[in-house]
């Protein structure tokens, strides 16, 4: 089967690839680019652990074909840190202990980043609504919500 040529901007780096037409963005990120921060859990779009930013908007990378995003820019959890310093969201998740097993964390942070991109000062209700796109089976969400609140205060 013919491969498809794509050019994507991943974490501010322009990358040219030849991908299978039926390859998902998650597979490309994890298997071709070794960016294993986005996790595969349900693989059906239900859980959100594979969330990355597509042109600044959170998306489920397991539901997107890589050929679809030709020319787009992708941000993964690995691309959040700036000048070797962690992003305030990552800091806040550590400070508040919003992590238990850690499998949902990268997806949670990317969803929260998407929220903060479009709303600098989200209310608690807005944070809860946004975070409800992702499933966490350990924390009970309370500390995750607190961490996002903390990060939005720090970034303000």
């Amino acid at each position, binding site marked *: 089967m013919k491969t498809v040529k794509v050019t994507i901007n991943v974490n501010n780096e322009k990358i040219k690839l030849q991908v299978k037409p*039926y390859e998902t963005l998650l597979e490309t990120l994890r298997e071709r680019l070794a960016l294993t921060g986005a996790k595969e859990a349900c693989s059906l779009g239900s859980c959100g652990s594979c969330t990355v930013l597509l042109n600044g908007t*959170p998306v489920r990378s397991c539901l997107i*074909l890589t050929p679809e995003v030709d020319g787009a820019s992708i941000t993964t959890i690995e691309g959040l840190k700036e000048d070797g310093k962690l992003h305030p969201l990552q800091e806040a998740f550590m400070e508040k202990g919003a992590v238990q097993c850690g499998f949902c964390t990268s997806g949670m942070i990317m969803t929260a980043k998407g929220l903060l991109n479009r709303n600098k000062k989200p209310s608690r209700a807005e944070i809860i609504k946004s975070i*409800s*796109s*992702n*499933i966490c089976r350990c924390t009970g969400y309370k500390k995750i919500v607190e961490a996002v609140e903390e990060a939005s205060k720090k970034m303000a």
Partner: protein
Amino acid sequence: MILPKFEYKKARTIEEALEIYSQYNGEAFYLAGGTDLVPLLKHRLFNPKVVIDIKGIEELKTITKKGGNLLVGPNATLYELKGTPEIQEKLPCLFQSLDATSCETLQMRGTIGGNIMQNTRCLQYNKSLEWRTARGFCYKMGGKTCNVVLNAKACYSNYCGDNAPSLMTVDAKARIVGPTGEKTIKVEKLFSGDGKEPFTVKPGEILKGIIIPLKETKGAYEKLTVRGSIDYPLVGVAVTIKDGSAKVGVTGIGPCPRVYELKEVNEKEINNIADKAYEDAKPVLNAVLTPAYRKKMVGVLIKRVFKRIEKGGSR
């Protein structure tokens, strides 16, 4: 989970999409948001030779106001549509059903066209190929039985779209374009009532637009789910009141959404419709809650939605 092998083609115009569809003799799927299609493909429920990406078609994306109508391109995302001021101000029922659909992240990718045209679901159908092979294929997979109801003569899968019933209550229409031309039909005419082939749309046809009349309405949407988000409706009830009469749409039970009309809005009429919808609802054991509970909740939700509208309608 790995996708089956297919080719990928990007269409720039509707004509090009139809052309590719016929080149592959219909062994093709149109791809917009992909939030419904990709899981179906991963489960090997369909094995197309080609997937035609129609996201690049400009005319399918726009939301415009024309005359007294809102013309919505089917590739507008649910999130975009939810943010449209006309919908927020005049069509509270549609706004609430958009808001209740799945979760924010999926609303940003999923399109209104895809949401309306989503395939029917069943606990015994939306499973992996291995699971379904072990169980034996049902009507919807091309087999000769139903795996839920013994000796059933038809497919009992559920239509789980949140927004089609609210579009029905606001008298929305759908424009369909295909190899044989263009037509405009009421949204309710999109549904065949057959779980195996839930839509009247013929192979290759594309939903080109949705025409929503912009009139001042009151309304609300209520859905029964197990979780607070990322859930299909186990029962969904949409109600729109306009000029003293009302329309009630019921989704989540059976292969198509149903719509009922109330000439007047009073307690007697509401109770009558709630009883009628309860009688019409024939849930079977193919969703995560028991049929008896879901059936009962049809009437309960209808009464609850009317009460909520009376109190101002907010969620």
